[in-house]
């Protein structure tokens, strides 16, 4: 914007004449932007308020109370790390693991098994619906068939395994009828097996939805290109579909891991209230009014889950994928 010859100045004159209106327009623009922005705050405020009151403050209070003392009658504001010491008591002893470590190992075992099965089943189901079903309407219908149970009661869906897995249940009856076993298999119900079965039954939907979502976005031309370049079905799956479905796999995995790590209902009902889980420890301490102990356990659980999620996202590099 150098001031050049007269012609340029003259050419600039009309603009100069208009100059007074320019700041006004800018001012009104900023006023409008400001109004829009104020409106945005107003519109986001209810959600922010709900999360502040029922999520952030409770988490902070949990952290705070985890350092408090307690006795049989009340909780006492103070600062002690005793609750955490209790959580990890005896954990340095390698010979016989402490309760916390054993519980975490048991919960991690459920977590790993559930993750493996939900991933395999969820991926296969999503792959079938996304790539092998040709009609868009049939795709939506099948997708809906997979998600409807998600909207019904989890407890009922757990109970519904009783007539199948019980001692005199359908599975044992059938196997005995076929002459495959002489007497009923004990431990189909109220065992590690039934717990994992129920987890897979309840949580596969959390894998299907995000993986299907990722797959639906894959450009079909890429598959054509792979086919034309001579890739076999497996090669296409491994080198094209799976890498592009990774964000969905990551999101589904995070869901499944957090749901299983914090669970106490499924382990309780399907384990016949006999199997320990991290969530159950917290629940029991809470009902015994040992609030600071429960809070310390919750903080440790939250830390463990966050670590797993971070490891997960590192492994898959979610940011790069998005």
């Amino acid at each position, binding site marked *: 914007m150098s001031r050049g010859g007269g012609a340029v100045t003259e050419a600039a004159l009309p603009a100069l004449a208009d100059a007074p209106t320019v700041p006004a327009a800018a001012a009104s623009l900023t006023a409008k932007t400001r109004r*829009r*922005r104020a*409106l*945005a705050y107003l*519109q*986001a405020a*209810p*959600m922010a308020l*709900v*999360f502040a009151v*029922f*999520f*952030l*403050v*409770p*988490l902070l*209070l*949990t952290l705070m109370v985890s350092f408090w003392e307690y006795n049989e009658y009340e909780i006492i504001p103070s600062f002690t790390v005793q609750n955490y010491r209790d959580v990890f008591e005896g954990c340095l002893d390698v010979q016989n693991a402490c309760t916390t470590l054993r519980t975490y190992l048991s919960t991690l075992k459920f977590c790993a098994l559930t993750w493996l099965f939900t991933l395999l*089943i969820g991926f*296969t*189901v999503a792959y*079938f619906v996304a790539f092998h079903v040709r009609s868009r309407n049939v795709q939506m219908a*099948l997708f809906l*068939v997979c998600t409807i*149970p998600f*909207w*019904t*009661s*989890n*407890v009922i869906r*757990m*109970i*519904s*395994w*009783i*007539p*199948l897995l*019980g001692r*005199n249940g*359908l599975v044992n009856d059938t196997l005995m009828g076929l002459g495959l076993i002489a007497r009923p298999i004990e431990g189909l119900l109220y065992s590690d097996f039934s717990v994992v079965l129920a987890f897979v039954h309840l949580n596969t939907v959390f894998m299907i939805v995000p993986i299907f979502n990722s797959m639906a976005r894959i450009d079909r031309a890429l*598959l*054509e290109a792979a*086919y034309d370049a001579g890739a076999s079905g497996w090669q296409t799956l491994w080198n094209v579909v799976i890498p592009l479905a990774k964000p969905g796999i990551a999101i589904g995995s995070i*869901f499944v891991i*957090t749901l299983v790590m*914090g*669970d*106490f*209902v499924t382990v*309780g*009902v399907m384990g016949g209230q006999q199997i320990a889980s991290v*969530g159950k420890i*917290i*629940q029991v301490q*809470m009902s015994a009014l040992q*609030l600071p102990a429960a809070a310390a356990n*919750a903080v440790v*659980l*939250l830390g463990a*889950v966050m670590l797993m999620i971070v490891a997960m996202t590192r492994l898959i590099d979610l940011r790069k994928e998005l």
Partner: protein
Amino acid sequence: MSDRPRSPAFYALAAFFALFVAFLYGPTLTILVLSFQGPQGGLTFPMNGVSTHWFGKLWAGSGIVDIWGALWRSLRLGLVVMVLTVGIAFFAGLAFRKRFVGEGALFTVAVASLIVPSIVVSLGIGLEFRLLDDAVKWAAAETGWGWLQEHGTLMGLYTSALGAHLTWTLPFGLLIMFAVFNRFDPAYEEAARDLGATGPQTLRHVVVPILGPSLVGVALFGFTLSFDELARTSQAIGGRNTLPLELQGLTTTVTTPEIYALGTLTTGLSLAVIGAALGASLYLQRRRARRGLRLG
């Protein structure tokens, strides 16, 4: 690809899918059948006659704790959660279309609320309300004000339990709104503004009708997730339980098909809600298409 003949993989995958659907629905169908057990029947097959005996018992409310009260509480809470979820998520979705400071933080918190284990959220809310109660008690003792004295607990269906449910339903609602607004063409709003519509008018006559089917979807999530919620409610409710909590308690105490009858009933209720929502969503879509055709 679609003009190629079906590969053998298709049939294998289709069979796998069929097995998965059987796995998904089979057990629920089993208890549906068993809920019609005869009066002498037990928790497993064989069927000992066919009757509605256990539904009758359920209706009379004899065997099981106040199940109708719990059902009623869950329904009311579900409706409140549904309305709040649709309203709050819709406006938050609108806010995220404009830029605002802290939008990243709010989104992170919403996602965090979804993936922090439910027991931790529940414990936190439970603690919060206990501390609040203690604070009120302390204030009552300090001030001696009459209206503070007789308060029991602030924890309850429409306070702590409602909040716990919203931490679970709102993230789903927000994510759905994101997907919905991504596909929403702002040209409709601009057209409305150019024709002189005010902001609220544009919302009411343009945005809401276009998004109607999706808002029904958010409502479906809000109601069903609340109606079946258990883990987050467990530590955040006062004395009176919701239906899922009662059900969980019943799994260890009830040894008759009455619990199957209850399962059939609640599943039927959920399916009715899902059916109504899908129907409403389809109806709104059709109506929109019809009107669009007439206007266009």
